[in-house]
């Protein structure tokens, strides 16, 4: 049970401006069936004054997605394109009273649809699907870019990976990108992550120390990532600088096993333990 404000429930029960404006001057779309929420916003704009004279929405989503869309249409009607463009996701959430943290992405979706609709208007009315800029996608489950994450962190003073997930959905699927989100958080919030180095030179270690060091890196840096895909890795032998690894669980027999060994496990061991190490399948 979510703690929705009366305003959210009002806009959910009695959504304003439902539908699509025929021959709209601007059409913005965001989201998909796969994501679980989607919004199509159409606007009618007075070309002389740039004032948004009408706005309608169609939404696939939960109560807060419908409420965010509904209130957005009310917020932009009567505003000029320039004024409307300044509306942020926080403005949408504020207009609804507030949204549960886990539902903040609904307000972000409203802002993105508006951005796309404005772009569509400026380009002559051809529908525009909101897209991340041509840069790095961090969360592949929900198609969230680094820029969206950075924006959300800055605008809403996000501190944790969980916050980022609540606002952008990034990290809410398989979770594989959580490490990357943490790095972005550190970068934006100016944290200095302490690099993990193994003090003693690998070559000078005893065999037991070598095995323990490798095992520690496997436990801290390798297994948590493999576990997310339902797999794991076992250290079976160490011969000179050749590390023998047995992949287990979902990783055993996975088509990408060779890649996991070389591109991930070997790379990690080279970085964290010693550049001379190579990994072979046991």
């Amino acid at each position: 049970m979510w703690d929705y404000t009366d305003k959210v429930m009002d806009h959910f029960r009695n959504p304003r401006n439902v539908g699509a404006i025929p021959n709209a001057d601007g059409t913005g779309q965001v989201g998909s069936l796969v994501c679980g929420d989607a919004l199509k916003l159409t606007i009618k704009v007075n070309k002389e004054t740039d004032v948004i004279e009408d706005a309608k929405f169609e939404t696939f989503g939960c109560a807060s997605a419908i409420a965010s869309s509904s209130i957005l249409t009310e917020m932009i009607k009567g505003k000029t394109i320039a004024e409307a463009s300044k509306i942020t996701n926080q403005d949408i959430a504020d207009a609804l009273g507030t949204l549960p943290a886990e539902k903040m992405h609904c307000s972000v979706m409203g802002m993105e649809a508006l951005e796309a609709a404005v772009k569509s208007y400026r380009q002559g009315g051809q529908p525009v699907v909101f897209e991340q800029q041509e840069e790095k996608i961090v969360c592949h489950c929900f198609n969230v870019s680094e820029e969206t994450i950075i924006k959300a962190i800055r605008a809403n003073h996000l501190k944790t990976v969980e916050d980022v997930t609540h606002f952008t959905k990034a990290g809410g699927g398989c979770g594989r990108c959580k490490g990357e989100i943490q790095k972005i958080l550190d970068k934006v919030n100016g944290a200095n992550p302490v690099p993990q180095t193994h003090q003693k030179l690998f070559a000078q270690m005893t065999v037991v120390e070598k095995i323990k060091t490798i095992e520690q890196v496997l436990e801290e840096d390798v297994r948590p990532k493999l576990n997310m895909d339902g797999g794991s890795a076992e250290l079976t032998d160490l011969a000179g600088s050749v590390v023998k690894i047995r992949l287990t669980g979902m990783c055993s027999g996975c088509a990408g096993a060779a890649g996991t060994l070389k591109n991930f496990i070997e790379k990690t061991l080279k970085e964290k333990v010693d550049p001379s190490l190579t990994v072979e399948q046991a």
Partner: protein
Amino acid sequence: MKVIYLDNNATTQCAPAVVEAMLPYFSEKYGNASSMHTFGGNNRHVIDEARRKVAAFIGAAHEDEIIFTSCATESDNTAIFSAVRTQPRKKHIITSAVEHPAIMEPYKYLETKGYRVDFIGVDEYGRFDMARFQNVLDEDTALVSVMWANSETGTIFPIAEIARLTHEKGALFHTDAVQAVGKIPVDVQQAGVDMLSLSGHKFHGPKGVGALYVRRGVLFMPYLMGGHQERHRRAGTENVPYIVGLGKACELAQQRLNDGTSARIAALRDKLEKGILASVPDVKVNGDPQHRVPNTTNISFGYIEGESILMYLNDLGVCASSGSACTSGSLEPSHVLRAMGVPFQFAHGSIRFSLSDQTTEADIDLVLKELPPIIERLRKISPFSRLAA
């Protein structure tokens, strides 16, 4: 507003007769069952009486095969960790991909500790992949834990067959029977299970009490340590009123299984399901129509989102559940529906109705009258509804 409660797989009403049976053991007969004095010691007999009722209800050969716990999650965790700790040389465990988190999470934890873990998938009807199971089962397998019935779809797994195959390879078989007990006849001897978990509040008992059946002869290691209670198998002062309540709930559930109540519930469920299928386009029933507990139906409404449906139903006093991402806060739709390969446009809009003996014909009629306009309304808002047209 009258509450129309169609969420009995989440929890059930604690039956008034159960509450009545429990009440004396709070402030009147509050003694500790372990005490030397008669005042407390008498409660040991009360606990044993409840134990007999639970044992009889699930067909256990001996009363001492029943261990009282605080909930089915504790029963599940206890069973899993006991099975692996008592067979330290075996490093492989198997379960299904559609289990409750109380099974999934310990399995995932054990995987990080070096266990080989296989999560056996299901087909589009939610049926257990027996071929894959037989393929991965081997002499290194310590435990197979497969649920008796699925909480979301009601699909019943062929437990006796899975148990038989498990034993052929010398592994232990546990079943989380939380959604089966009270809904269909459960007989541990007939099914040949080694361990079974059940929960009181799923069949009109109180919350906060469960049981674990451990067949005599199965090696066991306790999960909670620090007391002699339950023959050293589960430490902690016995929760006398709740144990009494669980015993009473078993007694009442046995009556319902005998007196045709199950058939009446199934008829109402079928009426609801058929009625929805007849009046709403683009719907899909999730689960195995042939092997399903009588009280559950899981229906997907294409192109709209489950939470929205639930909220509109809630405004009418109708309580149901959804496998939609939005209701859990997890962002992804139910792992059960995903394992079944239910397409996204249907997975997000899934609603589970779970009935009980208290469900009336009038309840079902109300849902059948009110639901179609809700679906129509949400589809009007949805940008995808034209895809359906």
